C-alpha cells in the first residue's frame, strides 16, 4: 500500500479520483456496446427460435454467405496485394497517382456499385449485348471492387515500412528472388494481408445492398425480408450472423498480431518491371479507370437520358438537383453528429484503453470492436426489438433521430476508438509531467496539453465514422425517422423501384460526397504516411 494521505490535496488522493471517473464511464460504454447483441441472444433463446437455425431454411443462406465471403476475401487478397506491390515497389509509370487512385473505391458504397453495374449491362443498358448481372457472380464482382482497398491500404503501408536492409541481407545470403519474396516479404506483410482479408470477410457477411440488388439470397437478405413477417426467424438468423461475425473478428485478432517493424532510414527497394512495364500499366490503368470512372459515367448517362427524353414525365435537371438538397443535408447532418458523438462519447474509454494495465479499458475496447463486427442490420434489428419492448419512455425513441445516431455510434464507434487510443498513447508522458511540474492541475493539464495535442487525432477518428455513416444503408433503412431520407436510402428505394434516372443523380451526389470525404479523411493522411519510394 502507498502512503495514506492526510490532506485531501495529495497525489494519492488525486490518482484515485482521476481513476474512478473514466473507469465508470469505460465500464458503462462497454456494457452499452454489448447490450444489443446480448439482448438478441437472450430473446432468441427465450423464444426457442434457436431451433429454427437448425432447419434447412437457415442452412442455404448461411452457406451462400460463407461462399460469397470466402470468394471475395480470396480475390481481394490477390488484387489488393498486387496493386499494393505495384504502387510501392515497382517502377510502373505514374506510380504516385496509382497509389492514391487504387484506394478511391473505398468511397463507393456497395449498393451504388451494384446499381451501376445493373444499369450498365443488359437490355436497355449502355452495353445491351451483355447479360444484366445478378446472383452470385454479380455480387462477387461488385463486392471485390468495393472491398479490395481494405487489403490494399494496410499491405501498401506494410510494404513501405519494411526495411530494405532485410531484403538486401536475404539476397546477399544467396536467396533467389522467388525465395526472398517467400521468406522475407511475405512474412512481413502477412499480418496486414490477414487483417485486411478478414475485414473484407466481415464486410461481405454484413453486406446488404449489393446482395439485395443482385438478388443473391444470403443471411443478411433473409434477415431483412423476414424481419416483419417472422420475428423469431429474423432474431435467430441475426444471432447466427452476429456469432459468425464475432468468430471471424476473434480469429482476426489472433492472426494479425505482428511484431512492430523497426524504422529504417532508407527508402524501400524498388523493382524494375522491364519489358512488362507498359503492358502491366495498361491493365492496371484500365482496371482502375473502369472501377472509378464507370459508375459516374453510367449514372450520368442514365440521369441525362431520363430527364432529356422527349415527353418525359421525369423532373427537369434543375428539379432533380433540387431534390438532392434535403437528403444530402440529412446525410451530412447525421454523419457529422454521429462522428462527433462517437469521438466525444468514447474518449474516456479511449483513455482507459491507452493505459497499459486497465482491465476495464480492455473490456471496453473488446466490446466496442465486437459491435463493429456485428452487421449493421443485426445491430439495428436488436435495437429495434429492444426499444419497442422497453418502457414507453424508451419505446418512444423508436424511429427518432437520436436512436439512429446511437446505432451509428454503436456500429462504427471502433473506428473512432482505435484512432483516439493511438493518439492518446502517442502523447509522451513527459508533456503532462512538465505541465504538472509547472503547477498545472488536472483540468488545466487536460485543456492545455491533452486537448491541443490529442484533439486532431480524435477528430480524425470521428471523421472515419462520418465517412462510414454517409455510406451506411441497412440500419438507416430500418431506423431512420419517417420521411428522413438520406442519399443512401434514396438510391436504394429508387433502385428497388427501377427508377434509374433517380438512381443516377442521387448516386452521383453520394459519390461526390463520399469521394470528397475519403480524399480528405483517408487519402491525404495516407499520402503523408506512405508516399511511395523513389
Amino acid at each position: 500500500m502507498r502512503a495514506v494521505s492526510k490532506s485531501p490535496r495529495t497525489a494519492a488522493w488525486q490518482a484515485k479520483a482521476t481513476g474512478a471517473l473514466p473507469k465508470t464511464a469505460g465500464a458503462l460504454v462497454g456494457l452499452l456496446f454489448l447490450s444489443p447483441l446480448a439482448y438478441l441472444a437472450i430473446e432468441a433463446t427465450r423464444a426457442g427460435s434457436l431451433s429454427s437455425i437448425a432447419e434447412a431454411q437457415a442452412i442455404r443462406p448461411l452457406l451462400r454467405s460463407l461462399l460469397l465471403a470466402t470468394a471475395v476475401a480470396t480475390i481481394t487478397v490477390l488484387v489488393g496485394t498486387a496493386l499494393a506491390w505495384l504502387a510501392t515497389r515497382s517502377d510502373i509509370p505514374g506510380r504516385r497517382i496509382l497509389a492514391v487512385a487504387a484506394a478511391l473505391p473505398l468511397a463507393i458504397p456497395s449498393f451504388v456499385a451494384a446499381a451501376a453495374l445493373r444499369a450498365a449491362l443488359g437490355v436497355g443498358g449502355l452495353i445491351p449485348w451483355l447479360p444484366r448481372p445478378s446472383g452470385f457472380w454479380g455480387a462477387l464482382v461488385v463486392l471485390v471492387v468495393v472491398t479490395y482497398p481494405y487489403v490494399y491500404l494496410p499491405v501498401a503501408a506494410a510494404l513501405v515500412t519494411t526495411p530494405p536492409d532485410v531484403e538486401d541481407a536475404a539476397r546477399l545470403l544467396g536467396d533467389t528472388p522467388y525465395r526472398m519474396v517467400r521468406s522475407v516479404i511475405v512474412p512481413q506483410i502477412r499480418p496486414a494481408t490477414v487483417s485486411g482479408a478478414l475485414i473484407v470477410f466481415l464486410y461481405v457477411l454484413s453486406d446488404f445492398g449489393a446482395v439485395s440488388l443482385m438478388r443473391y439470397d444470403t443471411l443478411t437478405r433473409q434477415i431483412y425480408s423476414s424481419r416483419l413477417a417472422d420475428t423469431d426467424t429474423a432474431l435467430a438468423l441475426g444471432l447466427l450472423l452476429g456469432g459468425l461475425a464475432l468468430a471471424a473478428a476473434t480469429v482476426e485478432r489472433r492472426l494479425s498480431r505482428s511484431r512492430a517493424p523497426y524504422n529504417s532510414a532508407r527508402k524501400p527497394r524498388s523493382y524494375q518491371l522491364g519489358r512488362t512495364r507498359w503492358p502491366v500499366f495498361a491493365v492496371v490503368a484500365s482496371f482502375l479507370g473502369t472501377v472509378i470512372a464507370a459508375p459516374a459515367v453510367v449514372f450520368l448517362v442514365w440521369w441525362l437520358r431520363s430527364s432529356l427524353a422527349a415527353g418525359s414525365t421525369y423532373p427537369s435537371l434543375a428539379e432533380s438537383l433540387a431534390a438532392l438538397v434535403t437528403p444530402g443535408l440529412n446525410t451530412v447532418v447525421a454523419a457529422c453528429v454521429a462522428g462527433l458523438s462517437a469521438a466525444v462519447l468514447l474518449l474516456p474509454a479511449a483513455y482507459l484503453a491507452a493505459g497499459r494495465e486497465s482491465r476495464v479499458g480492455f473490456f471496453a475496447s473488446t466490446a466496442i470492436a465486437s459491435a463493429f463486427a456485428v452487421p449493421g442490420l443485426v445491430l439495428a434489428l436488436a435495437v429495434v426489438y429492444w426499444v419497442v419492448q422497453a418502457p414507453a419512455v424508451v419505446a418512444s425513441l423508436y424511429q427518432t433521430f437520436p436512436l439512429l445516431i446511437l446505432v451509428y455510434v454503436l456500429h462504427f464507434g471502433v473506428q473512432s476508438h482505435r484512432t483516439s487510443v493511438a493518439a492518446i498513447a502517442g502523447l509522451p508522458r513527459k508533456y503532462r509531467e512538465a505541465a504538472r511540474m509547472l503547477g498545472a492541475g488536472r483540468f488545466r493539464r487536460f485543456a492545455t496539453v491533452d486537448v491541443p495535442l490529442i484533439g486532431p487525432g480524435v477528430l480524425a477518428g470521428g471523421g472515419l465514422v462520418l465517412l462510414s455513416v454517409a455510406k451506411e444503408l441497412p440500419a438507416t433503412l430500418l431506423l431512420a425517422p419517417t420521411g428522413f431520407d438520406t442519399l443512401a436510402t434514396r438510391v436504394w428505394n429508387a433502385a428497388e423501384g427501377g427508377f434509374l434516372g433517380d438512381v443516377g443523380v442521387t448516386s452521383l451526389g453520394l459519390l461526390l460526397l463520399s469521394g470528397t470525404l475519403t480524399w480528405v479523411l483517408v487519402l491525404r493522411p495516407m499520402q503523408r504516411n506512405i508516399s511511395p519510394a523513389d
Partner: protein
Amino acid sequence: MTSTLNIRNVAKKFGAAPILRGVSLEVPAGSTCALLGPSGCGKTTLLRMIAGLEQPDHGEISVGRRVLTDRSTAIAPEQRRIGLVFQDGALFPHLTVAENVGYGLPRSKEAGQRTAEVLGLVELEEYADRYPDELSGGQRQRVAVARALAPRPEVLLLDEPFSNLDADLRERVRHQVMELLDELRITTLFVTHDQEEAFVVGGRVAVMRRGQIIQQGSPAEIYDHPVDAWLARFVGEANLLPAISHDGAALTRVGRIPTASAVEHGSLVMVRPEYLQLRGGGEGVVKSVDFFGHDTAYAVEGYGETLTIRELRAPRFGVGDRVSVAYAGGTAVAFPA
C-alpha cells in the same frame, strides 16, 4: 527564495527488485549537486521522487521546512514548487517559446514581464514568438531551463539535460546554464551519467550505484580518493597495482608509493595515469601510443597488469620500445584486498 533539499533514507522496490535502498542526500540552499551514476542505478527514479512523479516506499523528502513526502504525506507535483528540466526539454510543441516559458506563471500583468526577463537570462528574447521545432537543440534546452525557472522554484532538478547535444555544443550550453544557476543561487540537483559533466557542474558530487549513494564529496575528493576500485575506474582512468606494506607506504612493481590509507598485504594501490612517468630502457614494453594533441597515452606491458601512463607532451617512445615506469608523485589510494 531558495532552500535546502533534504532526502532521508528513501527506498523503493519495483516488484521484488530494489531500485533505491535507503538513499540520504542533502543539497544545501543555493548550492549545486551532481548526482552521478551509470544507467539503471536509480538516479532518475530518485529525481522523479523529489519531483513527486513517483512515490517512495519509505523515507522522507523535504525542502526547507516543508515536508513533501513522508509516511503520511504526498504533496502533488504541481504544488511542490520544484522545477524540472527534462532530458529532451519536453517543450510543448503547440506553444511558442514565450507561451512555454509563461506556462507556469499565474495569469497577471507581471507574467509577460517575467517571461521576457527569464528569456533574457538565457539570451533568447528575440526567439519569443518561435515554435520549439524552429529552434536548435541547444536553444530548446535553454528555453526548457527558462521555463523551469520562471515560476521561481525553490529547487531545480535537471535530468541529463544536455546529453542529447553534440559534444561541442553541450559544453557551451552547459557552461552558460550553470553560470546562470550559480548567479541565481538556486538549489540545484543535476543528474548525469557522464563523470566529466558531473565534475564540471557540481560543487559537490554524489555517486550512486545499485540504488545506493556510495560516496559524496567535491570532484577532487572523488577523483583522488574514490572509495573503491569500481568508482576509481568509473570517474577516470586508473592503474591498480598489487602492493605490500612497507614502512607505512606501499611497495609495488613500479616502486614505493605513499598512500593516504593504510596498506595491507594483497592491497591494490590505485594510481592515476598522469601520476606515472616513463624512462627509456627497462622491463616494460610499449604496446600502444595514442597521441591526443595536448597529451599522450601509453599502454605498457611487463608489470603484471597493462599500465596506462599519460604525459603532457608529444610521444617520446614508439610501439615496441623498452621503457621503465616510475611513480611521479600525486595522490594514490590503497584498497583492501
